[in-house]
């Protein structure tokens, strides 16, 4: 089913935010929608967004590829994104990532064999005072988990269905 069929009301609300002649501004919201179900943006979805905005698929791909929260590949159901930037690393984020990787049996960048988790090392998420921190990206949602120990992190992951 196309995005327009599935999310017609949401799409209408997105376009209503911008002047009618500036509908290209809706692109990021539409890309999030396209990512909702599978966690990545398919070629068909990009084509549909390009048609909606009356721009080329290449332009849509250019935007989708520029931003780190948009994904073009199917990965694990949940993306576990650990910040290891300087402030977090000063509070143990590097070893937290290593421990989490070991517990999950994968290296950063890899997906667990059951396809549930992809472990990722990401840039600053704006929670430097509550390190170690990770966010879970799932579909078009992001959830923060702050002041984490390995045990707490594993408990969080266990609760994700």
């Amino acid at each position, binding site marked *: 089913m196309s995005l327009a069929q599935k999310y017609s009301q949401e799409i209408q609300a997105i376009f209503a935010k911008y002047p009618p002649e500036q509908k290209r501004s809706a692109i*990021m919201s539409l890309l999030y929608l396209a990512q909702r179900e599978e966690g990545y943006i398919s070629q068909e979805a990009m084509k549909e967004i390009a048609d909606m905005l009356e721009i080329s698929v290449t332009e849509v791909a250019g935007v989708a590829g520029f931003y780190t*929260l948009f994904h073009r590949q199917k990965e694990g159901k949940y993306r576990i994104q650990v910040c290891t930037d*300087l402030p977090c690393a000063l509070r143990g984020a590097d070893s937290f990532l290593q421990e989490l990787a070991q517990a999950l049996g994968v290296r950063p960048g890899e997906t667990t064999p059951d396809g549930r988790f992809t472990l990722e090392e990401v840039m600053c998420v704006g929670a*430097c005072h509550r*390190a170690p921190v990770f966010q879970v990206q799932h579909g078009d949602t*992001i959830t923060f988990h702050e002041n984490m120990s390995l045990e707490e992190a594993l408990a969080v992951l266990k609760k994700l269905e």
Partner: protein
Amino acid sequence: MSQYLLLRHREIPEISRLEVYRQHGGFEAFQKAVTTMTPEQVTEVVKASGLRGRGGAGFPTGLKWSFMDRKSWPHYVVANADESEPGTFKDREIMEGNPFQFLEGVAIASYAVGAQRAYIYIRGEYQHIARWLDEKIAEMEAAGLLGEKLFGTDYSLRIYTHLGAGAYICGEETALLESLEGKRGQPRVRPPFPPTFGLYGKPTVVNNVETLTNVPLIVQNGAEWYRSMGTPDAPGVKIFSLSGRVKRPGSYELPFGVTFRQLIYEYGGGILDDRPIKAIMPAGASSSLLRVDDRVLDTPLDYAALRQFGSDLGSASVIVIDDTVSIDWVIQKTIRFFKHESCGKCTPCREGTYWMKHLIDRIRKNGKEEKQVKLLLDVARQIQGKCLCALGEFSTMAVVSGIERFPEDFRETVLEGVPG
């Protein structure tokens, strides 16, 4: 007198509810501005208050508003809520805790520059905050604080949120505008500046969240009142994001003129394990590293004060580094960040950050050969002054200051565990 002007939810826990915010004077300033002041008068008050941009550049806010091209319409206000500098987490707490004061600031700024449409550009990672602000905006609309013909005047205003998707560069105002227009977030050539050519090519004011959150209080209480706090160079209060090797990291709202010693030892509880402090990055990962001595610790902080030490206050994102940390490791972290976040538009930044990363990785792996360190310094210097936006410059700050001010951490060492 209450302790907080911005982080008022710490004293009034329910201030994120509209009725509570209004019980505490909320939206009186907006109503006062729209019903009793001209846009020029509002701009004049903000100018007279000495309020400077809190996003990092410290540009006088009222002056920026007065630059709006009055021959070109419509006008836009864009709130920069893209907060992405490693070490910065202050705007987040404002929007989570005291959302209406920020939104009232957006509304007053919009009135002052004649904008009937305002956007809040929020970093993608703060998705929960965007949803939260959407609810608050809907409450304002229902209460007649946003919409058509406000307070019985001809002034109309709508505010919308716009969610980013993970790109540090979109904190740069022209990249942010490109992103808001639905393009890749790459900086524009300036001039023209946004007050002439901004969103959709129209005059636009881009202000940081914290900056805007000051505005309702200034309009309500006047410029003199605001100037009674802080320093002549930087009147008012600032939220310091304190992180790194301190006991109590967090956001601290304090008047300008506070010292690092007070911030780190009094408010932040001192250094973890009571180690000696070694370095401070006052403006997040893009700072020049300060080598700490008593003079640095006891200098009253404002924008001018830190320049004498060859650094900058920026957004006051204070990262504290103790003596257990080697500076070559610090710059490996900052280089990695800027290489990842370089938008790729300017060659010196795109290629330079790549080579800096290559060199620091090699130095950290193979040992600190003088030749390699010199080459790294050379690459950093070649980036400086050659990029369209500040990111290129930012990527070099810790590198150059780190190597120059902490030479002992870059001296050739015999690698541990390597025979001979």
